[in-house]
């Protein structure tokens, strides 16, 4: 059972609605009334205003009157000079010049952005890439050169990849070494000549990896020529004089006096090597080289190397 208020017609939880005698539109009328009065006060028409608004209307009138009595301020020399120069409207020529300047600046910015993006990805043409790289280098920004492309990106890489060895290894011609069959090439190193498993001759020189740009016979990347007859880079003659680590050549009869610290992977290597830090991948490479030092165990099972080093520092080779 719900409890009801004594006056059942009045629900205290609800705001009572308008009664028949209420002036519902009164607030709106008051607002309109205020707006009309406000305009009259601003206009200074005090005749029809309520008494309390008359002083305000007179204040407005006085304020307007004093503003109209304000003297004309003297025109400054700068403004007068501006009037004489006639800078009222910008000339079309000046506007066009400004617009063309903005367009030129935008075009330059777009070209620079494109060049930067292309150079950063080393995708520009070789000459342009080099120019951008050298220019960026002036500002201390490291942008790769075109010859630093990997994966056959440039002609230089391809050229370096598979030049025939200067001294194709006669199997076992000078074998007897135990060095790696396919060693990288040092610039002046005496190649770690791979052992020729069947060769009685002088140590076979491991095939050299492709040398980059022919600089000093040093390579940082393995050659990409699978069957390349590797070339020596910097090795004059494949005269091994060092001790090579124990080879893994099961039949290796060759000796290697190479300085290649990395194991070659030339299975039939007749390559050159020396001082190169990266393993070549010339499976059938024939190369020359000189190396000094210790070579890691070769993996040339049938290595037949030659001891004739390539005289050149660069190793242009076959193109794929």
């Amino acid at each position, binding site marked *: 059972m719900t409890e009801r208020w004594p006056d059942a017609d009045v629900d205290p939880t609800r705001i009572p609605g308008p009664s028949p005698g209420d002036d519902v539109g009164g607030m709106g009328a008051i607002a309109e009334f*205020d*707006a009309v009065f*406000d305009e009259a*006060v*601003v206009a200074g028409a005090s005749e029809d205003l309520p008494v*309390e*608004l*008359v*002083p*305000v209307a*007179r*204040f*407005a*009138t*006085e*304020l*307007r009157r*004093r*503003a*109209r*009595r*304000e*003297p*004309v*301020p*003297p*025109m*400054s020399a*700068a*403004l007068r000079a*501006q*009037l*004489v120069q*006639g*800078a*009222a*409207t*910008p000339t079309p020529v000046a506007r066009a010049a400004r617009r063309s300047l903005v367009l030129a600046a935008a075009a330059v910015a777009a070209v620079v952005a494109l060049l930067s993006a292309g150079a950063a990805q080393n995708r520009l043409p070789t000459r342009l890439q080099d120019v951008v790289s050298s220019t960026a280098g002036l500002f201390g920004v490291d942008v790769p050169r075109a010859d630093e492309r990997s994966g056959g990106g440039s002609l230089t890489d391809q050229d370096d990849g598979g030049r025939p060895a200067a001294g194709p290894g006669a199997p076992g011609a000078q074998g007897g070494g135990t060095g790696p069959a396919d060693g990288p090439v040092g610039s002046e190193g005496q190649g770690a000549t791979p052992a020729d498993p069947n060769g009685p001759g002088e140590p076979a020189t491991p095939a050299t990896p492709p040398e980059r740009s022919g600089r000093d016979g040093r390579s940082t990347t393995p050659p990409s020529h699978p069957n390349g007859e590797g070339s020596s880079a910097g090795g004059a003659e494949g005269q091994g004089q060092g001790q090579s680590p124990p080879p893994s050549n099961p039949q290796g009869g060759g000796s290697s006096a190479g300085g290649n610290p990395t194991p070659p992977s030339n299975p039939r290597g007749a390559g050159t090597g020396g001082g190169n830090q990266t393993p070549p991948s010339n499976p059938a490479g024939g190369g020359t080289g000189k190396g000094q030092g210790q070579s890691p165990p070769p993996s040339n099972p049938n290595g037949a190397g030659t001891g004739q080093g390539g005289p050149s520092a660069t190793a242009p080779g076959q193109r794929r």
Partner: protein
Amino acid sequence: MTRPEPPTDLTDAVLAAKAGSVAAFEDLYRALAPTVAAYLRWNGVGDVESLTNEVMAQVHRNLGRFTGDGTAFRSWVFTIAHHRMVDERRSVSRRPVVIEREVQETAVTGDAELDALDALSDQELQSLLDVLSPDQRAVVLLRIVADLPIDAVASALGKQPGAIKSLQHRALATLRRHLERERIHHD
């Protein structure tokens, strides 16, 4: 010294000034510079003459981009004046300077209240305006001194017309209360 009556319609002068007529712009200057100066002065700007010249110089520079008739031109000029005044206030960042002006002689009208208002110095008028907020004062001055309609004031201040009406109503109510209080005080 009273200024000559401004031309009722500035449209022709505006067109001529846009075409490059120096004389036409000087007419516009004579018509509007005093009102601009009064608007700046009642808003408490210190160097009224200098700022008025800066306003009119900006008007002259941008005149080529203005389109409209004389009424729109008047509204546009006071928009520039208001913005320059706000910039000036920000740069000075101090309270509005009360400008000392001499009490101007006025004729006795016979109406005690009106005579009392006439006897108000500019400083007293300024003190009445100072009871308003900056927005309320700007609205009152643009409506009364610059004779701009509600829409033009709204455009100049970057507000909606309804907000201008509300500001105006509150400003007038505040003035009414202060004037009433002063009258009681005098009585």
